[in-house]
């Protein structure tokens, strides 16, 4: 069971990496903004599985924080992106 779960963790991680490559390459900001989304789902999946593998139940709490902060980061991404549209100059 542990091997299976570890394998799944590794796989999701690899998928996550692949997704990050595609997202970060761009072309626009909107694409990059998805990075936090991706981590908010795949990263949490990795954490949850990792918690099950290593028997660290509190990894779930980290996932909780990750979910919250990833959401927050996404909103910050969007907000900053929008604010740059609204105002021409800096600040």
């Amino acid at each position: 069971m542990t091997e299976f779960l570890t394998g799944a963790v590794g796989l999701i991680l690899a998928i996550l990496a692949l997704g990050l490559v595609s997202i970060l390459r761009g072309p626009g900001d909107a694409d990059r903004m998805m990075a936090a989304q991706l981590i908010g789902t795949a990263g949490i999946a990795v954490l949850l599985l990792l918690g099950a593998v290593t028997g660290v139940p509190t990894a779930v709490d980290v996932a909780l924080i990750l979910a919250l902060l990833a959401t927050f980061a996404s909103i910050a991404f969007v907000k900053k992106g929008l604010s740059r549209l609204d105002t021409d100059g800096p600040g």
Partner: protein
Amino acid sequence: MSIATLFEIVLAAVVLGLAIWTITVSETYSAAVGFVAYGLLVALIWVRLDAVDVAMTEAAIGGGLGGIVLLGAAARLRESEAMTAERPGRVVRLCAAALSASIAMVLAVAVLILPDPAPTLAPTVISNAGATGLANPVTNVLMAFRAMDTMLEKVVLMLAIVGVWSLASDQAWGGRPGPRHEADPNGVLAFLARLTPPAGIVIGIYLLWTGADHPGGAFQGGAVLASMWLLVIMAGLADTPPVSSRSLRLILVAGPGVFLVVGLGGLCFGPAFLAYPVAFAKPLILGIEVAMTLTIAATLALLLAGAPERSATR
């Protein structure tokens, strides 16, 4: 090679790849996004290293809030990128690369040749846990054994606030930090900003509470609360408080203040400064942590909001 090791190598490679991308990418905004991703993923390494307390801190403060403050600055400074100074020449870059690589090598060697069995304080920490009544060893170290560092670090946070505020223009002094956020009150953002904070506040308090016996604590809880507050501010549902507000000032000094008072109590009535009487250790520490969580939440949020920019009345 076991499958676990394979997983670790993949994780390390992803994190390192992100680090290199963050450094080398040409756009600062992209670098900031990359750093947020890096910070959130480093938390996975910390879980793997069985340091869940740090994983939470790194995800919340290091990657999360730290990344976001970088991102905000990158967005504001984007126009300036075109006129920035030239990159150093190829020789300098090569030289820097070689030297950085040698430092990395030296560090790697130093880590790999550390003695076996490794010295550790874990048994000492755990055998002394009875003195505080808390089961989370990290909280014990932070709040009891090395309480001085924690208290001073709270003062560092406060000084950072003083430093950031001191950058205000004289006219804006005493006013509200950051730009005023306007958002459609019926929009998606406002919806999210009404929906998320209740959950976030519960999680923040949960983290503080569970920190006594399980990973978590004032820092992690405070960071979550801070992000929720900022979310409400960004959605335009609330405004940042003016920095001259007395109650705000009191919240900002509450954490180190209570810490100091309890410490002095230990000096007057107990064996030493920052010593807790065994019978009251747990409530005292929790009391300090509650005050600290409030302070940390307010401090982190205000550090992100920046220097006062608008007069208090507007």
